[in-house]
Structures are given as C-alpha cells and as structure tokens.
C-alpha cells in the first residue's frame, strides 16, 4: 500500500502562534519530527503545552486566530498547506484522520451513529456496496467493543467512553495512512483501554498505517508507542525510543519529574506527587529554557538561550546540561 521507507509525516521546524488581545502566544515552537509507516509516535506533555495545537496544525485545521507561521508539514511527501479546500477534504479522511480530544467534534448530535458511519462510506468510498459497508461497520464496532445495536443510538444515548470508541472506529474506517489520536482513551476503563490499544496495534501492524498518539499519560504513551516526544511549553524537550522511558536512562529534568510522579503499584497507599511550580505562560515567555523556574538543576546559564535537542544515547534532550544528566543517570541506574 505504501512505500515503507519514506516517512508518512514530516514536521519540519513547525511553529504555531495564537493571536489574542494580549498579543501572540506561541503554542508550538520549532518542532521537528518524522513518522515512518507502521510507527507509533507518542506525544506527551502537561495540560496546555500545545499537543492539540500541533495535531490541528498537521490536519490544517487551526482556528482563524492561529497560524503555522514557520516551518513545513508534509504528509506522504505532500505539503499540507499547499492543498486546495477540495483536496484537503479528501486528504483529511482518506489519508489522515483524527480522533479529536472531544468526540463531539466528530459526532453530530442529531444523527444516529449508524447514519454517520454510512455517511463516511457514502462520501469517501461510494464504490462499496451496501452489504460491504454494513460488514465493515460491524467489523469496526467489534474492534472497539461496541454492540451493533448502538448503531441506532444517538450520541447522547451513549456513555462518554462509548462515544470515544465510536470516534476511534470512524477514524480508522477508511484505512488512512496516518491517524492522529488526541487523548483517545481518557474515558475508557483499563480493561477496555488495553484491549483497544492492542487492537489498534494489531491492525496497525497489518495495514501499516502510522499513528501519532497524544496523551498526558506517560505510562500509556511508553506502553503503546515506538518513539516518544516529550513537550513542554510548546517545545520538544526530549525525544527517543519508548524503551528509554521504561528503563533507566538519561532524561530531561521535566521528564524526570513526570517519571517520578508516576504512581507505583507495589506500595500500600499511593502517594500522589507533582512537579512543583506553575505551568508556563505562553503569551509572555521567559528567556532561555522555559522549564527553568521549576527545574531542580537550573543554573544561571539556563536563562541565556533556549537549549536545543542534543544526542544522548538513543535519544535527544534539550537541556543545557546534557552531559551531566547522562552521567548522573549512570549513578542513578
């Protein structure tokens, strides 16, 4: 189906700003990455760090007060921002699809779930016969563990998790090359979540589509992804293989904080820990590294310039002190 050597998605120095009464807020700042066919890239970061904005930018769906002001985004080698409206419409369901953070965006409240499924096939795969469409829909529902009787339900008659699962099924309905999933499982219990993630991985291995998986949950991200990108204040502060987040390795201080606040299962009573300090203000960025005010190892040099991603073993870290992070980790591990 696709050339397995060329990346499906190339994001090249992408920068997105929002305009509001207070001026510009940079929600995605100079981010670059590629996603190969069959790969799952996990993006993790705290609330408001720009994950959804990045996803919208890839879909060319930014709201009117935002713009991709620098950089390039290519899907299958095609610059997304060079497409006409018509091409975009086709491109969005057939080549790239998205599970939005809110299932409301995908689901129309006044139509039944079945109607909306059939509509997708009617518009984008008109050649398919009625019977074939019906079969495909049942198959998709089975995948997300929804009983076919719910095809007759309206979205408000479904639970939060069921709506989310329907949105997932719709996103993969047309076998796109790339699926962007923005917090797709926040309303799912652990059992169903596990099953669906397994299913996504299974069909993903068969169909070979690429996935960008966005979540605030590092535990989930490192479980599902092949590669991980950690975002903070609109920037990529760490990238690398998922393994790096499962086993002792050098990490950006922010990632370290995230890892340390993961609940541990082998204690009697969980302690919930956080990273001290408050989230950054995107509209009034500070000089140098954005994590500086909350960082335990911050030094005066950190305020000079924002650090760039530099190699450490199997990953990259954007911290002024990569060397000692790597060394400190040896002591740690």
């Amino acid at each position, binding site marked *: 189906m696709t050339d397995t050597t060329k990346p499906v998605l190339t994001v090249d120095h992408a920068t997105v700003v929002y305009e509001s009464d207070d001026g510009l807020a940079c929600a995605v700042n100079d981010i670059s990455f590629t996603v190969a066919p069959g790969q799952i890239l996990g993006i993790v970061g705290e609330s408001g760090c720009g994950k959804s904005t990045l996803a919208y930018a890839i879909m060319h769906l930014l709201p009117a007060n935002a713009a991709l002001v620098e950089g390039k985004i290519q899907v299958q080698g095609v610059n997304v921002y060079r497409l006409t409206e018509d091409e975009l419409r086709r491109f969005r369901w057939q080549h790239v699809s998205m599970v939005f953070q809110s299932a409301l965006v995908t689901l129309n409240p006044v139509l039944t779930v079945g109607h909306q499924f059939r509509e997708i096939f009617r518009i984008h795969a008109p050649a398919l016969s009625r019977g074939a469409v019906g079969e495909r829909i049942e198959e998709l529902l089975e995948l997300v563990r929804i009983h076919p009787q719910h095809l007759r339900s309206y979205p408000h008659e479904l639970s939060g998790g069921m709506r989310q699962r329907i949105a997932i099924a719709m996103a993969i309905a047309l076998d796109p090359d790339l699926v962007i999933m923005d917090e797709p499982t926040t309303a799912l219990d652990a059992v169903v979540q596990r099953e669906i993630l397994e299913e996504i991985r299974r069909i993903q291995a068969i169909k070979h589509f690429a996935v960008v998986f966005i979540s605030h949950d590092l535990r989930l991200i490192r479980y599902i992804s092949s590669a991980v990108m950690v975002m903070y204040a609109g920037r990529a502060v760490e990238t690398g293989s998922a393994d790096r987040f499962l086993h002792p390795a050098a990490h950006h201080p922010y990632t370290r904080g995230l890892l340390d606040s993961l609940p541990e299962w082998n204690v009697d009573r969980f302690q919930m*820990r956080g990273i001290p300090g408050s989230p950054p203000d995107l509209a009034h960025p500070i000089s140098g590294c954005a994590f500086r005010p909350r960082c335990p190892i911050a030094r005066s040099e950190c305020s000079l310039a924002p650090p760039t991603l530099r190699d450490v073993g199997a990953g990259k870290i954007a911290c002024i002190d990569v060397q000692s992070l790597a060394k400190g980790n040896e002591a740690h591990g």
Partner: protein
Amino acid sequence: MDERAELLKTSGLTVRFFQAQGLRRTTVVPVNQVSLSIGAGEILGLVGESGSGKTTLGRTLAGMIVASQGRLWFNGRDVTRLGRRALRQYWTEVQMIFQDVYNALNPVYTVEQQLSFPISRHAVGKDPDQELERLLHLTGLTPSSLIRRRLPHELSGGQRQRVAIVRALASRPRLLVADEPVSMLDVSLRAEILQLLADLRQALGLSLVYITHDLPSAIAICDRIIVMYGGRLIESAPAGDLVKTARHPYTARLLLAATFDAMSAESRPKPDRQASGSILQPSYRGCPYAPRCPAVTDICVETVPDWIHVDDGHVVACHAVASGRLGAGLPAREKSPG
C-alpha cells in the same frame, strides 16, 4: 464500618432509559438496584467498565435524573422525587463536575463570566474577585489575568476541565459528584487537584463521589471504592484493601489491566469477547459479569449474586466467592519498574 454521619443514602435505586429504535422501543437499565451510602466528609470512589452506568448513577445522585425505582435520601430527607422548588434547594447543596468537558462550559461566555455567578452567589462575606483569583491559582490556571478573559474554545482540554472544577467548587456544595474530573490532566496537575479536593474535605466536610477510570488516583484519595459492572454494584471495599484483596473476578481483571508495565505479552489476558449489549436489558437475569467471567457456573446465569461480607467493610457480589471457589488476592504480579 465508619462512625461518620451519613449524608446520602440510596436503596434499590434503579434507572430506566427508553430508546426508540426504529419501530421498536427498547429499555436499558444502566442503574440497577443500587444501594449505597456516603458519609459526611467521605470520599467515595466509583470505578467500573465504560458504559456500566457510572455517569447515570452520578447524575441520579445529583437529582438530574429521577429514579424509576428505589429511594434516595439526602441528610435524612427523602429526595427521590422532588418538586421543582425543592429540587432547586437540593441543587444548592449538590454539585456535579461533568465528564464531557467540551460541553461543560457555555461557549459564549469568558471564564470570568462563567464563574462570576456561582462565586458571587456563594462567596458570602468575601470579595468575589479575590475568591475567583484564589480558585484559579489553586487549580493552576495561571496567568489568571489571561485565563479570565478567554472563551472556552480558546482553552485546552485540561484547562476547560479545571474551569469546570472551579465552578463546581465555587458553589460550596456539601456533596460533589465528580465525573472523571481530572481525566485530561497529567499526573502532576492531577495530584494537585485531587489534593485540593482532599483538603476541602478536611476544611469544609465536603463529601465526594469520585467517578474515575484512574485506579491509582482513586486508591490514593478515596476512603472507599465501589466497583460497578453492567448497572450493578459488584464490590465495595476500603480503598487500601481493594488493591490487595480484590475478590470479584472483574475487579481483579481491572486491577491487572491497570498495571501496564507489569505485564509481559504472555501474561496479558485474552481479549474479552464482543461487549455484550444485553446485560443492561431488563430481561437479563443473573450476574452481569457472567458472559465474560472465567469462573462462571450455572447458577451465575440464573440468579443475581447476593452481597457477601468478606472482610471489615468489604463486600462483594459473586457466587464463586460465596461458594469459596475464589479466594482473596490478585493473580501474581511482578514489580513495576520505577
């Protein structure tokens, strides 16, 4: 079990929804014979499968849905079927944080406009503006001067969620039904917000029903956790006990699935068969978990299991536990890497 005064109590609470499906009309029973009680200042966790009726139960407790059977008492008063005026009175004492954050805020008002009404209404003797400032800071909605002027569509998912939390807290309820209140927040913020809720319990005696899919956080802040499946309560235990001595087969399965890292490929349980749509139908008899349960026996498909008292404050509804076929404890679990 606990010497706390009882704030809310239900007995045999049942909710039915009617759904027109073409020409037929089907009935679903997402809340079936639910009896529970919540003490003043207690934090009660409500966990369970997606679609098992947690939201519906939460809404019923908040007076948004009228139960078709059973009773609901609040502070000793029967509030099952209230008139409009009495209901408005009840609603000043109960608040709900909604699961769907994208619907929870009015699209046409800024954060400040959304919050000013509940705050000025309930913050007696306080400067409403300062109160708003304080709540925004507590929930990490900084810089507050900027956030105040934002419309909902200019906020990220997690920011919306926190605005909704502030709104619910501003009304100073006695009972807060929080339906997935932190589902879009990272561990760090999540810890802070849950700590805030726990502090409010201390300071104001707030009772909390914490509906969640995040077991670790439920275990961290709840006094007691109730597990729901197919519209019924199936297990209830003090939070600490549940991790160690879960008895119901579904609870065990849930706990196992929640420990992502601890599982190698072979130890992963086989996926469940297709979610059964029939267990919520009124004609269904028997244990709701029977269609999937590895320990199922004949009696399971015929009668609903009764509550069995297994430990101090720990009850479970399962035939296999009753007959002693299922002992305490989880399947062996490896230690998770830090």
